[in-house]
């Protein structure tokens, strides 16, 4: 649904230049099970979420159709390598290891990690306190590394929901995740007997991820992101999903 003429002009060019999986279409990989970034409206409805809408806005800017491919995180990078997607929009946070293998767009989410514990658990008030404690992390998230660095022994789980379950059942001491995830959870589920014990000092940056050969595409998308930021679109989306602008 690209309205403006210059956009559609761009698209005709785009189709051939970016070496897209499917000419004229931006093929985006996302989990579809990572609320509130990428999930299905009331479970079985349309694919929505902050990352999803950001990707849609970007495609719109480039005058490209957009097509989402939903898959587990395990498969997401394999799929990107296999040339099945053009880009991953799933809160991929930038870290050195990944930068060796992949290209990143300008970050569109800036947030900090939080340690979530059961209410009234005073034994943890900082990341240092995690030493020797047990945390539940989804292996593939970058929070996993943070927990490990903090000296916690990590129980790997499928995702946030399982992590919270373990925490509430008292089988782990804490779980580290994105502040935004936590807020969304509390907003929808109401008081769940868990609270934030500490927040990371340095915040993490999430961006769209590409294979190394997609330099042109990344350049184009960075411009698009800047425009969206300037037009306040990213801020709107932030408000919509988090009640705050999270794009910087």
């Amino acid at each position, binding site marked *: 649904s690209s309205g403006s003429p210059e956009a559609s002009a761009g698209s005709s060019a785009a189709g051939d230049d970016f070496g897209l999986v499917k000419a004229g279409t931006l093929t985006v990989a996302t989990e579809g099970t990572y609320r509130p970034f990428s999930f299905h409206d009331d479970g*079985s409805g349309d694919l929505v979420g902050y990352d999803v809408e950001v990707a849609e806005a970007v495609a719109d800017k480039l005058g490209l159709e957009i097509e989402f491919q939903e*898959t587990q995180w*395990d498969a997401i990078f394999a799929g990107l390598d296999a040339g099945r997607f053009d880009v991953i929009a799933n809160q991929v946070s930038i870290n050195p290891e990944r930068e060796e293998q992949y290209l990143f767009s300008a970050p569109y989410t800036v947030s900090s990690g939080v340690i979530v514990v059961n209410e009234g658990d005073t034994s943890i008030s900082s990341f240092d306190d995690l030493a020797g404690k047990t945390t539940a992390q989804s292996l593939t998230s970058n929070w996993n590394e943070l927990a490990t660095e903090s000296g916690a022994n990590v129980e790997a789980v499928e995702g946030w929901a399982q992590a919270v379950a373990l925490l509430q059942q008292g089988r782990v001491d804490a779980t580290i995740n994105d502040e935004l995830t936590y807020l969304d959870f509390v907003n929808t589920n109401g008081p769940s007997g868990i609270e934030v014990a500490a927040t990371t000092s340095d915040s993490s940056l999430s961006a769209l991820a590409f294979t190394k050969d997609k330099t042109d595409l990344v350049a184009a998308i960075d411009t698009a992101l800047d425009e969206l930021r300037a037009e306040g679109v990213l801020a709107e989306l932030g408000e919509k999903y988090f009640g705050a602008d999270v794009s910087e």
Partner: protein
Amino acid sequence: MAEGWQLFLDSFWPLVLGGLTGTIPLALASFAIGLVLALGVALMRLSKNRVVSGIARFYISVIRGTPLLVQLFVIFYGMPSIGIVLDPWPSAIIAFSLNVGGYAAEVIRAAILSVPKGQWEAGYTIGMSHGTALRRIILPQAARVSVPPLSNTFISLVKDTSLASLILVTELFRVAEQIAAFSGEFMLIYLEAALIYWLFCLVLSAGQGRIEQRLDRYVAQ
């Protein structure tokens, strides 16, 4: 609990739909193709030619010796590296067919061996070739023997198709994951999914009964 119940009701139809549009067609297609494959492999396995039976043996051993998950990965994410890019559904059908081919081959082989040697000879003595005897005499009898084990293979397949979500096929379990991720009630949703899988299996078993009856018309009750 009330809203849990509500969620259960709201999710039921989407899950069933995921089953009817994803799980069942995927399972049926893969099973049909897999059976043809399996028959071929079983016959190769029974061949007197060492090389031929060796190939079948190896194929079966690899299929049965490696996790289905990996087989899916190789076909969907691995083959592109040798230039073969298939869409999710074809990839899934190929992977599951190959898998069924490996498991069902052993079932069919056992069924063929279970037909008394005298039946082959009765066929030969009325002038039949090996092929004709196989087609007209042995396979019809082997079919009866292999229905129960094959229906087990099929039921396992129905559940295994949940792995297809890994390669972008949306079926019952994928839908369950989506709802679970949204609501956080993964326990409830997974149980509901299990219930629906179970219902599917009950229907299938009933089908098995029907087939056995039809094939049983020529054996003493």
